[in-house]
């Protein structure tokens, strides 16, 4: 099975004949140029894709183009001769009547039956082996000959020069009174032809057009099918600006009195061919050929009869002429049947295994869609994740800066306190000493230095106090703090450490819309300190456990209690006796400021913190804040 995109048995060729005829009857409306006028391989590839898309239909086509099971030799039965009928059946029968008669007379054992066919009809008939002989133009013969192993019996000698070598050609006709002097002027104009595969017509003219720099796609081409006469009538009636016709067709019709030859002239004229207007060089004439299933005896007989035909009024046949020029022409047009381009072969293969191809294409399409979907999801997800990460990092940064402010404030306060103590002692001693000296030795020169010691100590303490006042910050802004969001964020910030230490961190807020009056950042800071304290304890003891955070509403006190509990062992008695003493950490690193800062933050928000142990071997810290009575959705 093969896809013959270049032969007349191609999918398009098989599908179109009826439509061509119909369209001819209904008027020349079928415009082929868009899809078929260009033979560039790119287009071909496009056709392969289209074929894949229409693969169901392709199967039918493929089956039709399947090499037929050859019928038995026809000796005794009717011998069918397929005849290309460019001007209709009657004309064809009349034209070849003498040849048929000669065959009937010379070979009585066979009954010859002519069958007038279109280009596609012949191609299909040859492909299916429905005919035994074929009488067609050399273009079609070259296209069909090799793939179907046709035997070349004779070449027509019909022109006045009586040479079979100079017979066929195409002419591009315009009306005599038309303004066109070159083919370029036809760009965009309506040009009619028989068929894109018509040899003595469009095919022969195509190289001329291309060498004149005209892309056939630029013409408003219409392929009207047989009979050829219709082209000339359209040209005459002004329905077309030009017609691509076989040479001598005009002259023949003129001889029949159908048209006036002086009303037309040829463009791209190469001089006359056998007295006829022509736009192309001449190519060998029509060919009589036998299909391979025909017996050798019959073939030989037919060949002999053809070559022996003589006398006035009879058709004259000569020895077969080389179709090399035709083949060269086809090579130029990239149409040669033996020269299947790689893409075509790929197309053939794809179509042959169409169900695999279909599956692969569907798989590929599905894969592509899935890939696109995944990418989109990943992109969207990534963006959301990124923004969450950014928000979290921003929050972390804010908290870190608040915490470092708290730490520096707490350190300054502690330092101020600790320095104040010795200063107080100094002052006390100085004053106490002075008082004693005053009594014992009122004139002592030491009295003045004692006073000065006391005053200097007071001055030092004053500086410290000033610095402390300066460090003191404005009280935090009190706002409504929804606890769900607060706990969720606090837990999210601790997440990396929690995961690393494999701690189960749970939290719950009851009721879910519970809110406190406080400062959100301060509360995050406090919760962060408490969670980190717990994690420090777990880490120090290298143990695994849980942290639970519960926020509840205490209706009696109209306050919110947040309980942070763990099972990391709890506080020892000494620590519990003075939990808020700074610079007294039970852990190796850190300053033990977490609880001190937490207490200060809670106090500054008008809340409180209580520290203790619960019965199950862990710490329990309770944070109290006034409940927010504002409506959750103001």
């Amino acid at each position, binding site marked *: 099975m093969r896809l013959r995109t270049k032969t007349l048995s191609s999918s398009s060729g098989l599908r179109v004949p009826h439509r061509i005829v119909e369209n001819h009857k209904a008027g020349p409306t079928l415009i082929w140029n868009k899809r078929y006028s260009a033979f560039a391989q790119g287009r071909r590839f496009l056709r392969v894709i289209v074929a894949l898309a229409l693969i169901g239909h392709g199967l039918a086509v493929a089956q039709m183009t399947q090499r037929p099971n050859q019928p038995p030799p026809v000796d005794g039965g009717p011998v069918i001769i397929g005849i290309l009928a460019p001007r209709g059946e009657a004309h064809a029968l009349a034209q070849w009547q003498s040849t048929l008669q000669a065959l009937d007379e010379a070979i009585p054992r066979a009954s010859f039956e002519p069958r007038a066919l279109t280009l596609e009809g012949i191609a299909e008939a040859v492909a299916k082996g429905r005919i035994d002989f074929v009488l067609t133009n050399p273009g079609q013969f070259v296209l069909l000959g090799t793939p179907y192993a046709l035997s070349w019996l004779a070449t027509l000698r019909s022109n006045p020069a009586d040479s079979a070598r100079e017979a066929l050609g195409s002419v591009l006709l315009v009306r005599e009174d038309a303004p066109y002097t070159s083919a370029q002027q036809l760009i965009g104009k309506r040009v009619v032809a028989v068929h894109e595969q018509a040899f003595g017509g469009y095919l022969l003219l195509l190289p001329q057009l291309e060498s004149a720099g005209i892309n056939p796609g630029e013409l408003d081409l219409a392929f009207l099918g047989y009979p050829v006469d219709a082209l000339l009538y359209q040209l005459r009636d002004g329905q077309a600006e030009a017609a691509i016709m076989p040479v001598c067709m005009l002259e023949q019709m003129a001889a029949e009195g159908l048209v006036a030859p002086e009303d037309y002239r040829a463009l791209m004229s190469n001089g006359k061919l056998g007295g006829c207007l022509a736009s192309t060089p001449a190519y060998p004439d029509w060919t009589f050929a036998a299909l391979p299933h025909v017996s050798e005896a019959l073939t030989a007989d037919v060949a002999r009869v053809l070559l022996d035909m003589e006398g006035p009024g009879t058709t004259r046949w000569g020895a077969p002429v080389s179709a090399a020029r035709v083949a060269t022409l086809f090579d130029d047009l990239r149409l040669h049947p033996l020269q299947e381009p790689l893409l075509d072969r790929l197309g053939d293969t794809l179509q042959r295994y169409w169900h695999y191809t279909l599956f692969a294409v569907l798989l590929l399409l599905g894969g592509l869609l899935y890939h696109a979907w995944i990418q989109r999801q990943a992109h969207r997800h990534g963006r959301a994740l990124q923004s969450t990460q950014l928000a979290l990092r921003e929050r972390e940064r804010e908290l870190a800066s608040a915490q470092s402010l708290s730490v520096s404030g707490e350190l300054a306060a502690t330092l101020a*306190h600790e320095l104040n103590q010795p200063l107080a002692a100094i*002052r006390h001693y100085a004053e*106490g000493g002075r008082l004693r000296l005053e009594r014992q030795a009122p004139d002592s020169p030491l009295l003045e230095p004692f006073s000065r010691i*006391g005053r200097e100590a007071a001055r030092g303490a004053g500086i410290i*106090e000033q610095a402390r006042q300066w460090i003191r910050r404005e009280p935090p802004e009190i706002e409504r703090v929804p606890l769900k969001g607060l706990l969720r964020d606090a837990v999210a910030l601790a997440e990396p450490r929690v995961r690393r230490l494999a701690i189960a961190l749970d939290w719950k807020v009851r009721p879910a819309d519970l809110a406190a009056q406080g400062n959100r950042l301060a509360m995050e800071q406090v919760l962060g300190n408490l969670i980190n304290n717990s994690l420090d304890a777990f880490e120090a003891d290298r143990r695994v456990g849980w942290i639970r955070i519960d926020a509840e509403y205490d209706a009696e006190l109209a306050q919110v209690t947040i309980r942070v509990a763990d099972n990391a062992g709890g506080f020892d008695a000494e620590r519990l006796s003075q939990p808020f003493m700074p610079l007294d950490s039970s852990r190796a690193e850190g300053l033990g400021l977490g609880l001190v800062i937490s207490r200060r933050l809670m106090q500054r928000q008008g809340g409180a913190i209580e520290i203790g142990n619960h019965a199950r071997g862990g710490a329990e810290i309770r944070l109290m804040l006034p409940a927010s009575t504002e409506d959750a959705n103001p």
Partner: protein
Amino acid sequence: MINALPVHLVDDDAGVAEACRYLLEGLDLDVIYWSRGEDFLAGANLQEPAAVILDMRMPGLDGIAVHERLRAGSACLGVVILTGHGDVDLAVDAMKRGAVDFLQKPVGAEALQQALATAFDRARDYATHRDISARAGQLSDREREIARCVSQGMTNRAIADALHIAVRTVEVHRARVVEKMGAANSAELAALWQRID
């Protein structure tokens, strides 16, 4: 210091407390030192008029907590709060609780002396009030009525009329009330009674 009373010094920082004791002794005061609030509450005679210097920041019971317990126990102590940091809120709070002064470390001799003088007066007031209340507690209901009337400056005649008793009876009761309350005369009785009523 004249009219001095003992001074309790409650401070967890032994170094500072020792210095403070040195200063207070320079003022000829008797100093009783306690390093923990709990120890002070348990060991000191809180009914004996005295001054107490409370450090605000202590482990365990801090200055505020100790002060709170002293109030609850009707101690006869004048309270001076000492703090490392002059926190206005804390100061106001302490004064509301009845502290006589709120001093910031390092405190000078003079400021301390003045605060202690006030604290002594306050302690004596507490003691007097406590004594008068104790004596008033020994009066009968009728005597209490007559004492109240005297303190309001009523004559014997007026009292007799008000209570529907004989003037003579009023005179007898009145003499007994003056004696029981330890007053020298009716004017002194009136002054004493006004302090507790």
